[in-house]
């Protein structure tokens, strides 16, 4: 349970913000020249060994095992099995819905928290981070308890012909839970830093609420929003524990890509498991590259603000 995968950068609100700030931008390496060469050599060697062994080697291994039998076999593993095809399809359906839900919430929450002062605001900010400290398995469990056997909500919905658990709606709910804070905590610090001056000016000139949002607020927060969406999506597509619990793991019906990887592994179909895992790995790498590209734009002073101290 915890501050979880892919902690997004909140503009210094919390350590996740700190986490993402790349340390590489130190103005000058202060210790250079003062540390003896053997200290430097040993520490650089250790670092390369640690990062290479812990992260580099597994990355190489994923692609090596996925491509071990050649490109043809790789493609066959990904496309020939209908259950694997369905898992890819399901992930591509579930993740965008969960991300969309959290985008709508993130914008609403950021607007309220960054622009207004009201009783309970601090509690609200804390509650938004709550899902990060809940184990993914518990996140799945809570929806099983709500919609499972003998649960009032589940019985009522089933009586009306809706199946939530062991079906895509349950996958969406569990995914939305574990990715809940991502968009909101990207937007809140950015909106706070920009300040309300432009919006107040537009308002005094007679702009409507929607005009205000589309013409001023959205353009100001677009990079932060994109950043939040990318991090949220990566986590949504890769989520395992929460969807494992709510899916019932019905092959060809409720298996997402990560769940399919596990099933293939259990069936000793290692090449296919690694094939699918390599697609998820590519997704992670693309996410990190996008993150590196967007980060400088987040630090740009957004629009020239009036009366910024």
């Amino acid at each position, binding site marked *: *349970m*915890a*501050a979880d*995968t*892919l902690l997004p950068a909140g503009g210094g609100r919390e*350590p996740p913000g700190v986490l993402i*700030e*790349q*340390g*590489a931008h130190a103005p*000058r*390496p*202060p*210790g*250079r020249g003062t540390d003896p060469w053997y200290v430097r050599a040993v*520490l*650089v060697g250790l670092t390369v060994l*640690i*990062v290479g062994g*812990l*992260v580099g*080697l*597994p990355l190489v*291994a994923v692609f090596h*095992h996925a491509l071990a039998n050649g490109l043809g076999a790789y493609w066959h593993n990904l496309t020939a099995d209908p259950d694997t095809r369905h898992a890819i399809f399901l992930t591509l359906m579930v993740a965008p819905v969960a991300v969309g*839900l959290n985008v*709508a919430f993130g914008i*609403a929450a950021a607007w309220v928290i960054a622009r*207004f002062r*009201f009783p309970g605001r601090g509690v609200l900010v804390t*509650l938004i981070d*709550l899902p990060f*400290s809940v*184990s*993914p*398995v*518990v996140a799945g*469990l*809570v929806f099983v*308890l*709500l919609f499972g056997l003998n649960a009032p909500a589940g019985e009522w919905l089933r009586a009306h012909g809706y199946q939530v658990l062991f079906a895509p709606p349950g996958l969406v*709910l569990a995914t939305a839970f574990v990715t809940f804070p991502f968009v909101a905590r990207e937007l809140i610090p950015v909106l706070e*830093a920009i300040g*309300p001056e432009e*919006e107040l000016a537009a*308002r005094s000139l007679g702009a409507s*609420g929607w005009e*205000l*949002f589309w013409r001023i607020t959205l353009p100001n927060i677009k990079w932060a929003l994109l950043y939040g969406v990318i991090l949220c999506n990566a986590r949504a597509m*890769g*989520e*395992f*524990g929460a969807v494992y619990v709510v899916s019932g793991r019905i092959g060809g019906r409720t298996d997402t890509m990560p*769940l399919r*990887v596990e099933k293939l*592994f259990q069936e000793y179909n290692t090449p296919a498991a*690694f094939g699918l*895992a390599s697609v998820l790995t590519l997704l992670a*790498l693309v996410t990190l590259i996008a*993150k590196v590209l967007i980060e400088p734009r987040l630090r740009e002073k957004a629009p020239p603000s009036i009366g910024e101290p």
Partner: protein
Amino acid sequence: MGSGVSRRALPGFGLGLGYTVFYLSAIVLIPLAACVLKAASLSPAEFLAAAWSDRARAAYALSFTTALVAAAVNVALGLVVAWTLVRYDFPFKRLVDALVDVPLALPTAVAGLVYASLYAPNGWVGQYLDPLGIKVAYTESGIVLVLIFTGFPFVVRTVQPVLADLDAEVEEAAAVLGAGRWQAFRRVLLPTLIPPALTGFALAFARGLGEYGSVIFVSSNIPYKTEIAAVLIVSRLEEYSYAEAAAIAVVLLALSFVLLAVINLLERWTQRHGG
């Protein structure tokens, strides 16, 4: 922090707050309350039997110790990596720096799969460890290893900015005033690095306590031996013992909320020291 605006000056307060509270309740608060209520439907004796059985205690102990050891290892690794990345230049430094974030982006199932295969007795690394009698895959060591992987970025990314902001002048002044290298490290650097390192430790520890996806691949998940708390919850669910699963979940939730409070305190401490 931005400035609050009079509620009449900007539109959308009512709609925004209404939707925020509705969605927060629907996705997070009501489901969590359902879990607590389910656990509360047990009598105290039943709750204890479910949440504090021998098997459950063994699972908590394993989750706790593996997460603790992994987080401690990550403090050592994280300090070395953060120090090197901030202080020295070397070829491919940017790449190494970018790779540190991979565990945050890589799906846990992929991490579990690849670690299980690397450290299996016939795996790339396991084949060299097996003759030495070191078993990693399907043991507690395997659990610790994947938890080191999933928690690796936390200490690096909390310590890195603090180290980068540290004034070189402070160290130089210490040197000018006659402090030896070791003395400068102990008196100047160490006190500054302890708060962010502890924050990173707590984040990695909290993450490790709840981790599931990567662990089930590298652990044999045998009750009393290699079964972590999250795995026990899932097996209770598969037996349709919903209330028992909820009871164990409540214990885990309580533990993680305590950790959350500790992390918040540490952050404030870091800000006061690092400011």
